[in-house]
């Protein structure tokens, strides 16, 4: 026999059950988004490692032709070390922007050494570094897209309620901080 109490209990039970499933769904979607962010970070990392591996090679090659550019070379080496030692996304982004800048000035310097520019090994390294550079840009784009999705999920309702409980925190974007990339371009004649 169904009394009013049992009906009430069943209804409450059903509501609780639905709520539990909803929370599970929200939690799982946040975890899967966080995994996507981590995976896309790994994509950047792969490209960065490739670049780290090429830099010593490049420095050696340039040394052979341009002994007087000690400072420029040292900048590249320092930036690489910073990149390898970086602990979080912000530091990594800063270091990578430094590497990109240092490499750019190295390439600019190499313009003064025709023999270096003619070196096959050097041109091949340049080509590879350019390829990696653009891959880093694409990987950064993908990573930032994922971070945006993840951050939006944990900052909007109802995600924000559970983000705090389950300890999800917003991720950092991988940003370009090079002054030249941000500010207006100055042209001097």
């Amino acid at each position, binding site marked *: 026999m169904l009394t009013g109490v049992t009906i009430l209990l069943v209804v409450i039970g059903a509501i609780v059950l639905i709520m539990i499933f909803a929370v599970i769904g929200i939690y799982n979607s946040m975890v899967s988004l966080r995994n996507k962010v981590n995976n896309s970070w790994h*994509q950047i990392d792969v490209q960065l490692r490739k670049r780290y591996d090429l830099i010593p090679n490049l420095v050696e090659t340039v040394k052979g032709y341009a002994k007087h550019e000690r400072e420029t070379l040292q900048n590249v080496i320092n930036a690489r070390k910073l990149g390898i030692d970086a602990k979080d996304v912000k530091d990594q982004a800063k270091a990578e922007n430094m590497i990109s800048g240092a490499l750019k000035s190295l390439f600019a310097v190499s313009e003064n050494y025709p023999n270096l520019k003619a070196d096959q090994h050097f041109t091949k390294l340049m080509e590879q570094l350019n*390829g990696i550079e653009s891959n880093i840009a694409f990987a950064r784009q993908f990573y930032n897209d994922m971070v945006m999705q993840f951050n939006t999920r944990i900052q909007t309702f109802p995600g924000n309620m559970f983000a705090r409980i389950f300890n999800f925190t917003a991720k950092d974007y991988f940003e370009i901080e090079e002054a030249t990339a941000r500010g207006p371009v100055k042209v001097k004649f």
Partner: protein
Amino acid sequence: MYENIAQNKAKTVAIMIGFIAFITLVGLAIGYYIDWRYGVSNNYSILIMVIAFILAIIMSFSSYYYSDRIVLGLTKAMPLSRAENPRVYYMTEGLSIAAGIPMPKIYVVRDTGMNAFTTGRNPQKSILVFTQGILDNLNDEELKGVISHELSHIKNYDILLGTVIVVLVGMVSIISNIMFRSMIFGGGRRRSSKSSGGGILSLILLIVGILLILLSPIIATLIRLAVSRNREYLADSTGALISRYPAGLANALKKISVNSEVQTANSATAHLFIANPIGSKSKAIFKGLFNTHPPTEERIRRLENMSLGIGVK
């Protein structure tokens, strides 16, 4: 995005089921035809139907696993090495990172027409095919636009549906063609039409069978159309999201539309390509109606709207 993937998988299953039903019905029709023509008992129709059913199941499962190879064979695509064309490898590598999918294998069709397509059953097993013409004639930004368009087909699982359609719908077209011809030229001397039991039933089945066979080329075409037109617009816009440069693809489409003809393409594979690969000279009457691709001008217009005029030529 994820809705599209689920939809494409569901449609692939639907096509497979439709294919199995069609082949089984054809088997039944052939059986009844034999019964009716030679005046034997109904056993043949059941037997042939069962054989057809089993064959159809085997065919649709193998089409899931092997149709990419069939497509590559049909279009005479060959693997392209990194050494031969490092440029396209760098670009594809970068853009597949941006799209968040594994790097596809790269193949080439030695044809001067400018075109490209993708095949495979999932992003892990995808193959990106270019013609020599498109590699030679497009600049970096344009080629990136084309690659992003193709990568979004991979990401959306359009490749699975498109590739399975090539084989299954293609097979239906071939079978109905054969049946149609044999009905026209092979009919005539029936021996004892009176003696076949349940005459009305077999007659109805025969008529249904004939209708099906007559209609199936049209149905096949409609299926190809239904899957390809909107998908091209969608891939255009997803592609623009990957490359972040809609004008690249818009300019590429302008160049491609001059000569997108591919010698090895045919009506079974046409819907896979980024632009219509079949020469525009033939089959005038129903051309507009049965186009597998949306008008290029419209695609370019939509892309240029997206680009806000940046980089448009």
